């Protein structure tokens, strides 16, 4: 017997999901231990072992793979706990990272803060201005060396940085993605001066290796962020790896990447771990969508701290169209696009007296410590979870399967003091308003995310995941014009579930401008080798990397995406290439037509302008090795009427403050059978979550125990 284990660390809870070789799934949720993430990690492993009937040591010895979406790097950025780095750049470009790109002061902050222009400030830089030096030597935009690099100059600048306390170096020179010669020379000089066998050896990170892409600001920032979190991540993950090895785990720890795949810790670039949790959830949603024959999916995950939204079109996870932000920095990593807003079970409700005592929810979260008032850890703020508890939706004795009893009196007291009192309304009414407000915010964001990307929301199935997703699905789904929501069986730990089924995958990318259709000659590209050479180079890199992980070439699948645009246009559109290698003009034409079709779908056919020329600007080659996963079998449907044992009681719940509390039937999810239908109002208590079936909605369990919530017409 073996297990695939996925671990997803969130702002409030750490989720665990283990899939056994026999297809049996074990899940667990525990508070995220921000003071030391490995404490929660090992606590969860022990509990999974216990629930599977093993001692921890025996269990770990049987685990095939531990796939971990970690927030260690993210935390290091937030806490600014990285090392003092020195940046070596081209002379004259020393201020690039401080000037930023466009309105970089607004990157990575919530909209309401970005609007506060009077008080907005640029983030404290990861590298101080006095730790940046410029070296002479220049490569031009065609990759030719126009001024040689001076070794003497490099040594002088290096000494300056060392004297100022540098503990590592980032090298980012102009046009290094076209010709990395100078960057590699700088690295060689540093390694000669501070060889690895000396205590003073210092890590060197080159931009041409981390992000060989056009755009000096984003290339440099991607490299800086990577170097900044690298050491801390290595230290933490090595410690965790040792702990796991001591505990009996014999295989390498695998990290989830924000590019939609997984890699061993030893083969992972640190920057690819940022915000990987929601991407793991999206991967799970795409798989489940395939199973349910729903290829257009809006994935939503309402956890304790944030509400994540991802759009899956035609079964594919899409990377960011624009440059993704890591913490406060715009980077150019090929990360899967997930939007997060501060709306979760722990989001704090507050009165905005500057806006005429308007009720607001979030974006601040009570987190796991002190958490909502009802957690009884000293928290006094009102949160969405407190509102749900007061409304009767949550069972105070069965929260997290009874592991964390809730105190409803503390919730009532907090709502009374902070919301109901100032607004002059009752506690129930206040709780109901908190809930409605957060539902509206989430619904509006989902609508924006789908509609503003040029999609018709009505053609999408909404997947409601996360510990609070099933509790709020009926509330936010109507805002996007949908009447159906799918709540996956593993919804409360969907990020961990997605991680446990992820394949080995990495994306190799490089900027190269290739004119597929020349506007001046109105002719297609004839030098096909210029395209094929880039693809072959990326393929070689990926094969070499995956061979080092122990995979043979015949197991590797490739997928090519291209950033394309019309001539003289600024923005790029990502196009999945139908083939890796171009054989003739027909292949070039096919690619151009595909681009025009995609462009027309998004911006309307009138906006397409092929005669202006069509260029490729960047290549992304994803290499993937599929992992074995247990087969999922559906169960034969039972009748619509749930078994008597499934009805575990009833409790007062409020669905309309004008009516007050009404007695709502309560069902046990584990006792329900596929095919069972429940009409609202009703509550379903499941491991790690509670389904709220509002009046006018019905719930049906499908063959795979997913819940289909449908609003009756």
């Amino acid at each position: 017997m073996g297990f695939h284990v996925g671990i997803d660390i969130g702002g409030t809870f750490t989720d665990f999901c283990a899939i056994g070789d026999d297809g049996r799934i074990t899940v667990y949720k525990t508070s995220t231990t921000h003071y030391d993430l490995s404490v929660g990690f090992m606590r969860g492993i022990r509990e999974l072992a216990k629930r599977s009937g093993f001692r921890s040591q025996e269990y770990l010895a049987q685990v095939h793979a531990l796939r971990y979406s970690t927030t260690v790097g993210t935390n290091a950025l937030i806490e600014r706990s990285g090392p003092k780095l020195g940046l070596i750049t081209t002379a004259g470009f020393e201020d690039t990272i401080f000037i930023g790109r466009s309105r970089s002061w607004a990157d990575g902050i919530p909209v309401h803060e970005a609007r506060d222009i009077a008080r907005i400030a640029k983030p404290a830089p990861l590298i101080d201005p006095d730790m940046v030096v410029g070296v002479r030597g220049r490569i031009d935009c065609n990759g030719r060396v126009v001024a040689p690099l001076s070794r003497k100059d490099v040594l002088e600048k290096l000494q300056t940085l060392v004297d100022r306390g540098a503990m590592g170096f980032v090298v980012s020179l102009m046009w290094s993605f076209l010709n990395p010669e100078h960057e590699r020379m700088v690295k060689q000089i540093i390694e000669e001066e501070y060889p690895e066998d000396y205590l003073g050896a210092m890590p060197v990170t080159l931009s041409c290796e981390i992000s060989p892409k056009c755009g000096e600001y984003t290339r440099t920032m991607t490299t800086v962020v990577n170097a900044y979190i690298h050491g801390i991540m290595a230290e933490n993950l090595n410690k965790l790896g040792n702990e796991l090895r001591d505990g009996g785990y014999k295989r390498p720890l695998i990290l989830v990447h924000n590019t939609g795949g997984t890699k061993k810790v030893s083969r992972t670039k640190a920057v690819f771990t940022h915000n990987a949790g929601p991407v793991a959830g999206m991967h799970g949603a795409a798989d489940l969508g395939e199973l349910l024959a729903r290829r257009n999916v809006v994935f939503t995950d309402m956890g304790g701290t944030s509400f994540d939204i991802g759009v899956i079109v035609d079964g594919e996870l899409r990377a960011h169209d624009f440059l993704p932000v890591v913490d406060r920095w715009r980077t150019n990593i090929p990360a899967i696009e997930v939007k997060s807003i501060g709306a979760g079970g722990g989001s704090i409700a507050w009165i905005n007296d500057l806006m005429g005592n308007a009720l607001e929810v979030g974006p601040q979260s009570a987190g796991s410590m002190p958490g909502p008032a009802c957690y009884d850890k000293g928290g006094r703020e009102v949160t969405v979870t407190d509102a749900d508890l007061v409304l009767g939706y949550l069972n105070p004795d069965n929260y997290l399967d009874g592991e964390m009893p809730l105190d409803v009196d503390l919730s009532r007291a907090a709502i009374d003091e902070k919301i109901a009192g100032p607004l002059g309304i009752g506690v129930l009414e206040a709780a109901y308003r908190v809930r409605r407000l957060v539902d509206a915010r989430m619904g509006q964001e989902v609508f924006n995310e789908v509609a503003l990307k040029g999609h018709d929301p009505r053609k999408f199935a909404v997947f409601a995941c996360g510990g609070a997703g099933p509790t709020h699905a009926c509330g936010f789904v109507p805002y996007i014009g949908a009447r159906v929501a799918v709540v996956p069986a593993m919804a409360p730990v969907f990020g961990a579930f997605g991680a446990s089924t992820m394949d080995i995958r990495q994306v190799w990318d490089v900027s190269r401008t290739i004119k597929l259709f020349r506007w001046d000659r109105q002719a297609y590209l004839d030098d096909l080798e210029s395209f094929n050479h880039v693809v072959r180079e990326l393929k070689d890199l990926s094969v070499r990397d995956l061979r080092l992980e122990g995979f043979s070439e015949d197991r590797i699948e490739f997928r090519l995406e291209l950033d394309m645009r019309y001539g003289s246009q600024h923005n790029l559109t990502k196009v999945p290439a139908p083939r890796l290698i171009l054989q003739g003009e027909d292949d070039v034409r096919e690619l151009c037509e595909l681009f025009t079709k995609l462009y027309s779908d998004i911006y309307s056919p009138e906006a397409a302008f092929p005669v202006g020329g069509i260029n490729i600007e960047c290549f992304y080659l994803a290499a993937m090795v599929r992992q074995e996963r247990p087969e999922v079998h559906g169960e034969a449907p039972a009748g619509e009427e749930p078994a008597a044992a499934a009805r575990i009681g009833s409790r007062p719940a409020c669905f309309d403050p004008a009516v007050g509390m009404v007695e709502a039937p309560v069902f046990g999810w584990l006792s329900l059978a596929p095919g069972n239908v429940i009409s609202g109002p009703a509550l379903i208590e499941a491991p790690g979550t509670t389904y709220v079936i509002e009046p006018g909605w019905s719930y049906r369990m499908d063959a795979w125990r997913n819940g289909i919530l449908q609003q009756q017409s």
Partner: protein
Amino acid sequence: MPFLAHFAPGGQPSGAFFLPFLEGLAAAMENRMPAALTADATLWANAVPRAARLVDARAIAVGVLPMIAAESFGATVVRVGANASVVARPDAPVSEPWCAAPLANLLETSRRLAETVRPERELAVFLSGPVTLSLALFGEMPSKSILEVLKAGLLRCLELICEARPDVVFIDEDWAGRSPEATPELRRFHNTLKNVAEYYGVGYGLRADGIADAPGAIASLSGLRVAHLMLGGDPEGALPDACAAAKAAAAAGWTSLGLPVAAGCDVDEALAACDSDAVAAYLCGAAQETDIEFLKSVGLGIRR
């Protein structure tokens, strides 16, 4: 072999062991008064492990000196040797007691010891509880309103101690001869503290000192729903009957019981109680102990 580490997940100590209170001895070894320890975190954190090494103690307890918290909450305390008494009460408790000596020094000492004593030794930190503080600051048993006043400060102190990650935190209560009662307010108060300790993966226990009727108190205090109880002496310092206490603890459902011993007492009787199957019992100091021969002999007795 870890003993206190088992407290955190609600487990029992893995066998009999001895948790002596060595701050008095540590001060004597440094030729200082105990009050000098609490005034200097460096001295405190260096001296106590030295005393533990001297008597080969497997676990270190800090914060057992009386009235440390009360002083930081604003009471004026006079110390004579290891004893302390409140001579003036504040108009209102200090709002940030963790910033004021000697509690601030206890926090710093806990941080340093948590970094340095393991793996040879384990660490238990003692923090005065609401009953002790209420008697010291208000002169009465804690009412609902007093608990409200004390809660935020005590909670933050506990959080800061737990951030240092000791193996266990004991809430140290001196009932000063009053009959302990597990009121609903007190139970809720402990529940909040217990939840915080649990979040940090730190064991949470209660030390009950100054109780006249140990078996009665053991039964009564079980209503607080704290898993681990450590007994102190009665108001005159007399030690409870170990066997009766163990039986009472087993009947009341305590997970573990600390039985106090002091120089001159019958340690064998306490050891016999530890060996009985009634409850997972271990030995602890009754108060600050400076008799080195006694401390060594108890440790040897257990190992034999």
